[in-house]
């Protein structure tokens, strides 16, 4: 049984339908990447899994248990933590407080604590008392990842980690992922950067207009097939 499954997942913003039956699986220990253009439904998919958007209960299964209808705090307490798009640090909290709040709903013992997160991102330790939003974009992204890891999640959802960051910083951020994988977390990454996604993921899903248009192992997918699935036209 897969750790996380979606079955015919649909999602709506009022009358506007954003997802049209998305099927996706995540095995324990696996890293998958979801790529697609703006408006493809990637962020909606993440918001659905994390409980920010509510869906039909059976449309999302975690360990075989229906969680589609749960709200965000319930999903989080089960062990699915999200690094939201745009980082969304709390401006009135210091770096350290931003990290500590990550375990508010799930103070679970595990590999991740303030100490191990400072070891993963040493620059954060030097700046632990500054307000989170005073950091550079890349450092803020590190705080957002650390904040999600503090709950020792079983699944880490990362929405658009590279958004607005310089390529060299993006490389730094992704350098942390082998350690996160080694800690046992399964990871779902949403990316616009196909090259980065293919490097880090075991499997890739390509989305367009609220549907999965292509999936498979990066080595088995040709650039042309991805291009077609991404833009809907043949290159």
């Amino acid at each position, binding site marked *: 049984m897969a750790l996380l499954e979606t079955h015919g997942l649909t999602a709506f913003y009022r009358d506007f339908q954003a997802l049209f039956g998305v099927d996706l699986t995540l095995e324990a220990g696996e890293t998958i990447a979801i790529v697609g253009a703006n408006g493809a439904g990637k962020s909606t998919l993440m918001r659905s899994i994390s409980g920010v958007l509510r869906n039909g209960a059976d449309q999302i299964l975690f360990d075989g248990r229906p969680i589609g209808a749960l709200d965000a705090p319930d999903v989080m307490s089960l062990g699915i*933590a999200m690094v939201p798009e745009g980082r969304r640090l709390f401006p009135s909290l210091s770096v350290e407080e931003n990290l500590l709040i990550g375990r508010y*709903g799930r103070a679970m013992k595990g590999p991740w604590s303030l100490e191990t997160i400072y070891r993963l991102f040493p620059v954060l330790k030097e700046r632990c008392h500054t307000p989170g939003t005073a950091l550079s974009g890349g450092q803020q992204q590190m705080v957002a990842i650390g*904040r999600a890891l503090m709950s020792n999640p079983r699944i880490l959802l990362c929405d658009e980690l590279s958004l607005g960051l310089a390529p060299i910083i993006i490389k730094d951020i992704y350098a942390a992922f082998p350690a996160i994988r080694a800690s046992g977390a399964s990871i779902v990454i949403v990316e616009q950067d196909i090259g980065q996604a293919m490097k880090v993921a075991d499997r890739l899903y390509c989305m367009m207009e609220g549907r999965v248009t292509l999936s498979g192992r990066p080595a088995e997918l040709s650039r042309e097939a991805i291009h077609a699935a991404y833009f809907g036209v043949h290159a």
Partner: protein
Amino acid sequence: MSWADTILQGVLLGGLYALFAAGLSLVFGIMRLVNLAHGDLIVLAAYLILVLVSGLGLHPFLAVLIAMPLMFGVGWLLQSYVLNRTLGPDILPPLLVTFGLSVVLQNGLLQAYSADSRRIPAGSLETASVAIGPFNVGVMPMLTFASAVAVILILNRVLYGTELGRAFRATSDDATTAGLMGIRPNRTFAVATGIAMAIVAIAAVFLGTRANFDPTIGPARLIYAFEAVIMGGLGSLWGTLAGGVVLGVAQTVGGAINPEWQILAGHIAFVLVLLARPRGFFPRAVD
């Protein structure tokens, strides 16, 4: 020494206004909710303490210890079942609902306790005073001020040193993202209003032992509380104390010049402070 004495009395009165204002400031800071019934809730708590004192024969300071958890419960229920439903992008519903609540509380108290003015008896404490240097200072005003300082110290410790305080601030920043951390904004708000109402009980015991009260005096206490919060700067609890002191001193000095000027002098001080510092003494909130 009479002017110095007047100013000292005013400073101590500022402690009472800071107590009125601390709960208002906390609730506004966390959920941007302006509770127009805050003053009437102070009066409600004063009647609650009066009942405990006159009905059970308790000392007022013992009664307030019982009233605090009861008022916490009132705040928790009020937020959970009424005020949470009014929160949203529109700021009008909470104003209308708390305004209505204010009318309901005033008339309910009028029905239950009549329009007679009442006072919480505090025995010999009412008139006790100690000599500090050249001043004779009342024990109750000093206790009031000391309570205000203690309340603000504790509130600051809770806000900046505990997990609950982090949850308050995170929810205030961004409720959706707070949900991703496992925080339920509505429950956090209920606890915040509960704490505000426990502080209201402390304010009420000093209101009710210091002077007479009746069911209609709530709105004026609300205005004093607002003025203290705004003069101090939104989001700063020490600023709220400073605002309360300015208000207290202005009223006492104004009253010493001419008793008719007491209330007016407070409002004039408020306007002057806003002219000089439109965002108050210690503005913290960025918005």
